C-alpha cells in the first residue's frame, strides 16, 4: 500500500507536533494510489500452517514486473478456508489457495477477466459461488471495529497503519484533549473489559486517577496479552495483525493517567505476536510516537514486553503482576484493588488486548458513537473465536447482543452435517455450556451471566451430539488442575477431588449423593478459592449439571455414555455391510485387536480393544460404529 517505503518513513525522524504527523500522513496517502491492485495473502496461524508462505512466494515469483503488490497481512478470520487470498480493491475472495494457483490468479487479475472459478467460495447450502468477500455470510454478518484493519494492513509497516487511520487518535488526544477528557470519553463509550469479567474500563481508569491523586506516581499501564482460555485466539490475532492498535490504545491510557511506563505481558506461545509488537514499538519510537516527548507534546512514555513462561494463572491480574516482578505467578487476595496497589504496589491499570485496541477508535470517533453500538449495558462489538463442531471455524466480530444462534448458524454455518448444535461452551474454563434451547440468548455480558455462563475472553466452542458433557466438564477440571498455582487449598485439592468424582461418572460409578456432594463441594470452592481461577472453576460442571442432568444420570444409572465418548462405557464395532476389508484399521490398531481377511469385513476383538478410537478415525468408509 504505502508507496513511501518504511525506510523513508523512518527517515522522517521523530515527529515533533500533531501537524508534522498529519503532514506525514498526507504524504503517505498522496503517494499511494487507492486503485492500485493488491493481492493480499493471509498469514494468520491457520493459513500459515496450511502453507500460505509458499502461496505468497509463488505469487511474488509470478508477479515479476507486473504493476501490482503482493501484501502479507494478519489473520482474516476465516481459518477453516485457508490459505486465503483477497484481491483489492476489487474484493475478490479466494480460498484454499495452493502455490500452483498463483499463475491463474495473476492472469485473471492482470487481464481483468473472469475470476478463478475453482478457488471461489461456494455457499454450502445453495452451492452458489460468492466471489466477493463482502457477500460471504461469514463476513457480511460481521461488524469489524477492532478487526477493521486486520487483513488490510501489513502489520509490520507503520506507514500502512498510519494510512489506515493509525495514531490519529493519539495526535488528537495529545493536542486537543486533556487527560481527564480522555478518561471521560472512555467512560462515555460504556466499554467494558474484554478479558472476562467485563468491568467498566472508564470507571477503572477513573479509580486509578483517584488512587494516583492519593498516592502519587509512579503509576503503570499494562496490557494483558496472556490469552490462555482454550479455544480463544482473538488477542493473538489482534497483536499479530494490528499491533499498533494495541500500542496506541496503551499510549492513550498512559496519557490519560500520566503514566510513563507500560508493560505488555504476552504469552510465550505467541512468538509472532511478540515479534510484531516489538517491530511496532521500534517503528513508533523512531517516529516519536513512543518514548520521550511524544509528538512534541512533552509527554514521555515507554513500554517493555514481558513474555509469559507458560502459566495460565498469570492471566489473573495479581499473578500477572507478580510474574512481571520476576517471580512465580501466584495470585494474592484482592482486598485492595490493583488500581490502587498493582505492579510493585503502585496504582496500575491492567486491561486486556482487545480492550486496549478499542480505545483509539473511541477517542477518534467519540464515546457516544461507540455507546450506540451493541446493547445498552454491553456496548460496542466483541470478537469471538468460533471453534469445535462448526463449519466456519474462525474469528468473527459482531455487535454485543447478537443472538447465540446467529453467531453459530449465520456466521458459523452451523454444525457439519447440518444437525442442530448440542451446546455452546462460552467463557472458557470459567464459563459454561449453553444448550440448543438457549440459542436465542443475546450474547452480552449480563445475559450470558444470567444464563449461568459468562462472556470470558470470547471463545465459543460448539459441541454436537458426539460430544459428552461429562467428558467436557472433566476436561476443564483437568485443565485447571494442571494450571492451578497450588497456593490455596480449595483450588489445589478441590479441583482434583471434583475431577475424581467425575472420573467415577465417566466409568459409570456414582450416585445422586455424589452429584449432591459435587454441587456442595463446588460451592465451597467458589466461596473459598483465593482467585478467579479456582473461584470459577466449578462453572463448567455446574452448568452442564443444570442443563444436561439426564446425561449425567445416563452415565451413573444406565452405565451409558450417550455421546459415545467415555471409554469405559462404550465399545467399537465394525459394520460388515460398510466394511470393504481395506485393512487400514487393522494396520493402525495399536493393540492388533482387529482381524479380518483382505476385502472381507473385519471384526474387533473386544478383549484386546483399548477404545482408543484410531480405527474409527482411520476408516474412510464410516464402517466403524461406537455405542
Amino acid at each position, binding site marked *: 500500500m504505502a508507496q513511501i517505503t518504511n525506510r523513508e518513513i523512518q527517515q522522517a525522524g521523530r515527529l515533533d507536533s500533531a501537524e508534522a504527523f498529519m503532514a506525514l500522513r498526507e504524504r503517505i496517502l498522496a503517494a499511494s494510489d487507492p486503485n492500485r491492485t493488491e493481492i493480499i495473502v493471509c498469514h494468520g496461524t491457520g493459513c500459515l500452517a496450511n502453507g500460505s508462505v509458499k502461496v505468497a512466494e509463488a505469487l511474488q515469483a509470478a508477479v515479476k514486473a507486473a504493476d501490482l503488490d503482493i501484501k502479507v497481512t494478519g489473520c482474516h478470520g476465516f481459518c477453516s478456508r485457508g490459505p486465503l487470498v483477497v484481491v483489492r480493491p476489487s474484493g475478490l475472495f479466494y480460498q484454499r489457495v495452493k502455490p500452483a494457483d498463483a499463475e491463474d490468479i495473476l492472469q485473471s487479475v492482470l487481464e481483468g477477466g473472469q475470476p478463478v472459478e475453482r478457488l471461489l467460495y461456494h455457499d454450502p447450502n445453495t452451492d452458489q459461488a460468492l466471489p466477493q468477500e463482502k457477500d460471504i455470510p461469514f463476513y457480511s454478518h460481521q461488524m469489524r471495529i477492532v478487526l477493521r484493519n486486520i487483513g488490510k494492513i501489513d502489520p509490520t509497516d507503520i506507514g500502512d497503519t498510519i494510512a489506515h487511520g493509525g495514531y490519529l487518535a493519539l495526535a488528537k488526544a495529545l493536542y486537543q484533549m486533556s487527560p481527564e477528557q480522555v478518561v471521560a470519553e472512555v467512560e462515555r463509550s460504556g466499554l467494558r473489559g474484554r478479558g472476562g469479567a467485563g468491568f467498566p474500563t472508564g470507571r477503572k481508569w477513573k479509580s486509578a486517577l483517584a488512587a494516583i491523586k492519593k498516592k502519587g506516581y509512579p503509576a503503570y499501564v499494562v496490557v494483558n496479552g496472556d490469552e490462555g482460555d482454550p479455544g480463544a485466539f482473538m488477542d493473538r490475532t489482534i497483536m499479530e495483525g494490528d499491533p499498533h492498535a494495541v500500542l496506541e490504545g496503551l499510549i492513550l491510557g498512559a496519557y490519560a493517567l500520566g503514566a510513563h511506563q507500560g508493560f505488555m505481558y504476552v504469552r510465550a506461545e505467541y512468538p509472532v505476536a511478540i515479534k510484531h509488537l516489538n517491530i511496532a514499538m521500534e517503528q513508533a519510537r523512531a517516529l516519536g510516537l513512543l518514548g520521550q516527548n511524544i509528538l512534541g507534546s512533552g509527554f514521555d512514555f515507554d513500554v517493555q514486553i514481558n513474555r509469559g513462561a507458560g502459566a495460565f494463572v498469570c492471566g489473573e491480574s495479581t499473578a500477572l503482576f507478580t510474574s512481571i516482578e520476576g517471580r512465580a505467578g501466584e495470585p494474592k*487476595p484482592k482486598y485492595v484493588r490493583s488500581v490502587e496497589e498493582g505492579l510493585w504496589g503502585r496504582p496500575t491499570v491492567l486491561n486486556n488486548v482487545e480492550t486496549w485496541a478499542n480505545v483509539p477508535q473511541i477517542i477518534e470517533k467519540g464515546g457516544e458513537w461507540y455507546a450506540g453500538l451493541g446493547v445498552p449495558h454491553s456496548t460496542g462489538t466483541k470478537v469471538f473465536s468460533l471453534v469445535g463442531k462448526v463449519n466456519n471455524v474462525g474469528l468473527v466480530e459482531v455487535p454485543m447482543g447478537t443472538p447465540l444462534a446467529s453467531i453459530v448458524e449465520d456466521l458459523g454455518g452451523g454444525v457439519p452435517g447440518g444437525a442442530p448444535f448440542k451446546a455452546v461452551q462460552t467463557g472458557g474454563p470459567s464459563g459454561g455450556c449453553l444448550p440448543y434451547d438457549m440459542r436465542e440468548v443475546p450474547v452480552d455480558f449480563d445475559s450470558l451471566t444470567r444464563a449461568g455462563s459468562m462472556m470470558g475472553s470470547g471463545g465459543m466452542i460448539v459441541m454436537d451430539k458426539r460430544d459428552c458433557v461429562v467428558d467436557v466438564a472433566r476436561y476443564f477440571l483437568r485443565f485447571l488442575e494442571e494450571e*492451578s498455582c*497450588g*497456593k*490455596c*487449598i*480449595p483450588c489445589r485439592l478441590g479441583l482434583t477431588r471434583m475431577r*475424581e468424582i467425575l472420573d467415577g461418572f465417566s466409568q459409570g460409578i456414582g450416585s445422586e449423593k455424589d452429584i449432591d456432594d459435587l454441587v456442595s463441594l463446588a460451592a*465451597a470452592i467458589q*466461596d473459598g478459592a483465593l482467585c478467579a481461577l479456582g473461584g470459577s472453576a466449578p462453572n463448567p460442571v455446574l452448568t452442564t449439571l443444570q442443563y444436561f442432568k439426564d446425561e449425567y444420570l445416563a452415565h451413573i444409572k444406565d452405565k451409558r455414555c450417550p455421546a459415545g465418548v467415555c471409554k469405559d462405557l462404550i465399545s467399537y464395532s465394525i459394520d460388515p455391510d460398510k466394511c470393504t476389508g481395506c485393512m487400514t484399521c487393522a494396520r493402525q490398531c495399536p493393540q492388533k485387536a482387529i482381524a479380518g481377511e483382505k476385502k472381507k469385513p473385519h471384526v474387533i476383538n473386544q478383549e484386546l480393544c483399548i477404545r482408543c478410537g484410531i480405527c474409527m478415525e482411520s476408516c474412510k468408509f464410516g464402517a466403524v460404529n461406537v455405542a
Partner: protein
Amino acid sequence: MINMVIDGRQVQAQTGWTVLETARQNGIHIPTLCHHEAVEPSGACRLCVVEIGDETWSKIVISCMYPVAEGLNVKTDSPRVKNVRRWILEMLLAQCPASPEIRALAAEYGVQTTRFVNHDPNEQCILCGLCVRVCKEVVGVSAISTIGRGVHKKIGSPYGVVSDACVACGSCVTVCPTGAMSARLDAIRGVHAGREAGKGGK
C-alpha cells in the same frame, strides 16, 4: 475506633486491623492454619473464611487479610462459612491422615471421616507455606521454597539436596501447624549438621 458487628455482637476495632485480629481481641474464635503473627499473611489455607454483608448481598472473605471497616457485618459461622470449612477439612483429612493436628481440627468441626481416597498415608504437609515465609521473613535466609506448581507443588530446598543457605535454626519446625517439617528438616540442613544456628548462611 471502628464500630462493626461480628456474629451479632457490636465490637470495636482499630484502623488497620484485620477481621481476624478484631475477632480474637474480642474472644471470638476463628480457626486458622497458615496464619502466624510473626510473618505476613498469605491467604493459603482459607480456613479463616467469614461471611460479610447482609441479607441482600454477602460474600465470603478470609478474615486474616480482610481489613476492618466502619459498619462491617461479619458472620464467622454461617452455613456458607461452615460449608467451606467442612470441605477443606474433609479434603485435608484425606490428604494428611498422619497429622494429629489435622485430625483434631477436623473433629472439632464435625468431620470424622472423609469420602476421598488417600494417596500417601505418611503425608502431613498441607502446603500452607508458613515454613517458607518464616525462613524468608524472619530468619532471612530463604533456604526453602515451594517447588513446582499446582497439584505437584511441594516444599523443600532446591534440587531436594542439603541447603547451603539453611542455618539449622528450626524456625520452620516451630511454626509448622501439622508437624510436617520435623520430618523434613534433616534432609534440608543435612543429617549431621554440625553447624550452629547463625553460621553457614549466605
